[in-house]
C-alpha cells in the first residue's frame, strides 16, 4: 500500500484545489518560508483524523479553513482527500484505490468520507488498524519536533514510546 495523491481545497493556505501526486521513493517538497510546505503535512494529519487543533498549530479547528488574503475572500469549507493505492489489499476493502476525505464547514459541521461515502472517524481508524497509518504512528516528524525524544525526561519518553510502539 502506498500514498497516491493528496488534494487540498480551502485548507489553510491552499485556497484553490491543489494536487500532489506521490510516487514510491522520495518526494521532496521545497519553497520559500511561509509558502505552504508544512501546511501539506497538516493536511495529511488532518484527513487521517487529527483531533487536536494545537497539533495543527491552530487555536481552534476552524483555523484550518482558508481565511482569506489580500486578494481573496475566506473559504466556506476546507476539504482534503488522500488517495491510497491498495493493489496489495493491505486495507480491508475490495477497491484497489481507497480515498479518505474530510470536510469542515464554517458552520462547524464536519464530515468524513471513504470513497465518497459518508462515514465516521471511527470507520477511518478501523480501516487503518494495524497498517501503521494514522496520527499516532511514529511516521510524521513535524518541523522543529525532531529533538522531542531527547528533550523529554525518562518518564515522558516512556509514555511517547508506549504510544508509538
Amino acid at each position, binding site marked *: 500500500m*502506498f500514498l497516491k495523491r493528496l488534494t487540498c481545497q480551502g485548507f489553510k493556505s491552499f485556497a484553490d484545489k491543489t494536487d500532489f501526486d506521490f510516487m514510491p521513493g522520495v518526494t*521532496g*517538497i*521545497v519553497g520559500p518560508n511561509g*509558502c*505552504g510546505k508544512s501546511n501539506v503535512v497538516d493536511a495529511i494529519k488532518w484527513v487521517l483524523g487529527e483531533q487536536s487543533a494545537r497539533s495543527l498549530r491552530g487555536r481552534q479547528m476552524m483555523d484550518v479553513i482558508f481565511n482569506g488574503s489580500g486578494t481573496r475572500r475566506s473559504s466556506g469549507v476546507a476539504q482534503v482527500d488522500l488517495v491510497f493505492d491498495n493493489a496489495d489489499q493491505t486495507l480491508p476493502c475490495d477497491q484497489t484505490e481507497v480515498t479518505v476525505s474530510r470536510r469542515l464547514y464554517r458552520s462547524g459541521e464536519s464530515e468524513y468520507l471513504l470513497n465518497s461515502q459518508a462515514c465516521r472517524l471511527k470507520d477511518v481508524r478501523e480501516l487503518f488498524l494495524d497498517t*501503521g497509518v494514522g496520527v499516532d504512528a511514529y511516521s510524521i516528524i513535524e518541523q522543529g519536533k525532531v*529533538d522531542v*525524544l531527547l528533550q523529554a525526561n525518562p518518564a515522558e519518553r516512556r509514555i511517547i514510546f508506549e504510544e508509538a*510502539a
Partner: protein
Amino acid sequence: SRKRFEETFHQVRTHFQELYRKLFGGGKADILLETTDGEGTPDILEAGIEIQARPPGKELQSISLLSGGEKTMTAIALLLAIFKSRPSPFAILDEVDAALDEANNERFNRIVREFLTESQFILITHSKRTMSIADVLYGVTMQEAGVSKRVAVRFDDESPESKPAVA
C-alpha cells in the same frame, strides 16, 4: 502487554544501536530502562527510558552536552529505529535536516535511501543536498500573496526557491 513492550523495546534498541553507528560513522549509542539510583533491575512496567550516546572519538557524557547537530542525528537514529520496528507505508519528515552540516546531511540522506524498499518518504527541506536525493520534487510558492500554489522545480538552475518553473 508487558511482553509486547519488552519485545518492541528490544527491537528498537537493536535498530538504534545500528542506525546510530551508520549515521555517525562510528561511536556508540543505547537506550536503557532506568533503574532506581542506577542500582538493581529496572521495573519493566514503570521504568523511564534513558538515552546514551557517544559520538566517535569522544567520551560518553550526558546527551544534554551534545551539539545541536549531534542531538538531531541521535534523534533521527532513534526515530528511524522506532519506525523500523513499527513500519508504516510512508514517513513524512519536515525540515529535520535544519541543524545538519554538509557531511551529516549526506549521511542522513544515505540512510533514508535504505528505508525506501519498505516505505515512501516525503521530505520537506531547504537543503539542496537533500533535494538531490528526491525522485520527485514539488515546489510550493505564493505568487498570489497568501495563496499556496504547487509548481514544478527545475533542479539544474539556481535555487528552486527563487526561480521555480510554473507547472
